[in-house]
């Protein structure tokens, strides 16, 4: 019986655990609850993915109210895949968070930290699983508000201004999405995504509908940090606590990309998004600009976290290029990169978190000679970096390969040049860290640090190891992404 309730449990479990977490005074107990719930959420996501692969579509009506009157959760391969990414990353980063967060956040705020984490997880899972446009907005706000709190908990006072900046831009983005949902309801009289998809094709020339689509794209663009709407991202990632950066970098923008893809392909349909609206041109231009400018700016950063943040802006560019192709192959590239980028950025930010734990700083100049003092941490960072560049035998290579194939299928060879140049720029910024870590000597007065504790190294290597594993075995990543892309484009 309980198996029928899995889609509801996926979201309600972390939601109910959040206030419980608040009641626990001890940070350690709160952490334990948080990890347990996140692990169960991962288990549920895997069961759902398995079921979705078998059945194709799982529909869950909340409270027995049939759609379109009630809110329904629709789980297919696409969002089951996203659910797995979000809960998987949350669980592995939480393993890292206990020691890391204890060093960055006051003891009496620990349980608040894990409460906000669970709420953020709830919001992200809810955004992925829901089949109702307004429900998506509510979950978006749950995840956003809790992520502002998480970022503001960073050790530096600039975390506060970063969080404030994100709050302003994020709220404008979310309000744009609210306007879009309102306009959609005005024209169609429904909020259910499947129902919307049925009514939109008859209204292709409706101006309100076009306005709704434009508002939605800009709003989602703000949330997923599409160039040039990414201005909140570098500060937020730089000053947030290490574990939060890894969690948000690997999941928050990804879920927004998923939501955009869902609206583009399932709700509005490719005919509307690409023929009636000039979305293709916009995505190609902004995606290209994101890849080139993000990677270039990353080269000139003096802080490793900030450098990786700009690299995230570039990676989002690749995701957009995949979407812009409007083909099953392009969508496959986006979805597989969603998975692989979560692994590489999660792993990289955890490795940086290890360095921050020992050194108390992430400034590049302070990392001199770290390769010999913290060999495992640095090795993890280098492997993650190679995956980011896209070297064969790493997950990043699979992403790039699939994307290049998809681009060539459309015959857009200039984009291949963009992708290769992006990878070369990544070589430069990763090399700067390799050079500092291995070819410089430890600066004076900074020679007292040793390798990070095992409890931090294990989760880091879990994600870094996954980068290598999924660079060789692509059953879970590529094949599922392919099925998901076929599902989104085909029906």
């Amino acid at each position, binding site marked *: 019986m309980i198996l029928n309730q899995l889609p509801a449990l996926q979201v309600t479990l972390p939601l109910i655990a959040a206030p419980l977490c608040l009641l626990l005074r001890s940070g350690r107990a709160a952490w334990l609850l948080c990890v347990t719930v996140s692990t169960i959420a991962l288990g549920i996501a895997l069961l759902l993915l398995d079921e979705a692969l078998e059945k194709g579509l799982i529909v869950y009506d909340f409270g027995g109210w049939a759609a379109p009157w009630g809110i329904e959760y629709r789980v297919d391969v696409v969002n089951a895949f996203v659910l797995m990414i979000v809960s998987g990353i949350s669980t592995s980063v939480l393993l890292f968070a206990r020691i890391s967060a204890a060093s960055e956040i006051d003891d009496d705020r620990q349980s608040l930290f894990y409460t906000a984490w669970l709420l953020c997880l709830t919001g992200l899972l809810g955004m992925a699983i829901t089949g109702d446009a307004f429900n998506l907005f509510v979950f978006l706000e749950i995840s956003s*508000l809790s992520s502002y709190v998480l970022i503001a908990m960073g050790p530096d*006072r600039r975390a506060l201004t970063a969080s*404030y900046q994100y*709050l302003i831009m994020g709220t404008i983005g979310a*309000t744009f999405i609210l*306007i879009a949902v*309102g306009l959609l309801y005005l024209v169609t009289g429904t909020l259910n995504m499947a129902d919307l998809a049925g009514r939109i094709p008859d209204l292709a020339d409706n101006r309100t509908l076009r306005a709704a689509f434009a508002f939605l794209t800009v709003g989602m663009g703000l949330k997923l940090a599409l160039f040039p709407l990414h201005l909140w991202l570098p500060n937020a990632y730089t000053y947030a606590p290490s574990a939060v950066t890894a969690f948000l970098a690997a999941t928050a923008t990804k879920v927004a990309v998923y939501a955009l893809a869902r609206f583009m392909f399932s709700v509005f349909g490719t005919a509307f998004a690409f023929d009636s609206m000039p979305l293709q041109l916009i995505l190609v231009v902004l995606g290209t600009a994101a890849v080139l400018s993000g990677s270039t700016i990353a080269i000139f950063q003096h802080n490793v976290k900030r450098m990786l943040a700009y690299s995230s802006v570039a990676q989002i560019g690749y995701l957009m290029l995949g979407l812009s192709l409007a083909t099953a192959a392009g969508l496959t590239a986006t979805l597989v990169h969603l998975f692989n980028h979560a692994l590489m950025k999660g792993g990289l930010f955890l490795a940086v978190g290890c360095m921050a734990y020992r050194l108390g700083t992430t400034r590049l100049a302070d990392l001199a000679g770290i390769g010999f003092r913290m060999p495992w941490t640095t090795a993890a960072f280098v492997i993650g970096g190679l995956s980011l560049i896209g070297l064969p035998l790493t997950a990043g290579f699979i992403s790039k390969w699939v994307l290049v194939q998809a681009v060539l299928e459309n015959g857009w060879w200039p984009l291949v040049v963009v992708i290769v140049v992006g990878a070369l720029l990544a070589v430069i910024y990763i090399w700067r860290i390799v050079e500092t870590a291995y070819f410089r000597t430890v600066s004076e007065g900074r020679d007292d640090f040793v390798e990070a504790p095992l409890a931090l190294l294990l989760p880091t290597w879990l994600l870094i190891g996954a980068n290598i594993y999924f660079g060789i075995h692509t059953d879970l990543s590529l094949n599922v992404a392919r099925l998901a892309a076929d599902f989104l484009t085909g029906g």
Partner: protein
Amino acid sequence: MNALGLYNYWIVIFLMMTGFYVVIASGNLVKKIIGLNLFQASVFILYISAGKVSGGSAPILREGIESYSNPLPHVLILTAIVVGVATTALGLALVVRIREAYGTAEEDEIHRQDESL
């Protein structure tokens, strides 16, 4: 219906642009939050206007009433208002913390302090 008859939508646009302008142009962090509130309030009015049916009564079952306003947008916007209140509360809490850390709530001054580090 002429353009003036849709006056509530003109109010929506006016409020939206005012709020958006305040968010962008104001250097004071509290004023930015107020601008954000105006911006959100305009969307509330958009939803509420959309629920109105000409000649419709309040959506309560009564004898002799045939036409009702649509209650769904009103219920939806109730949720969005709650979200807006939460955002404002969090934003103001952040401003208080920023003022404690920097001693000011002016954006320029905060930038100056960060750069001098």
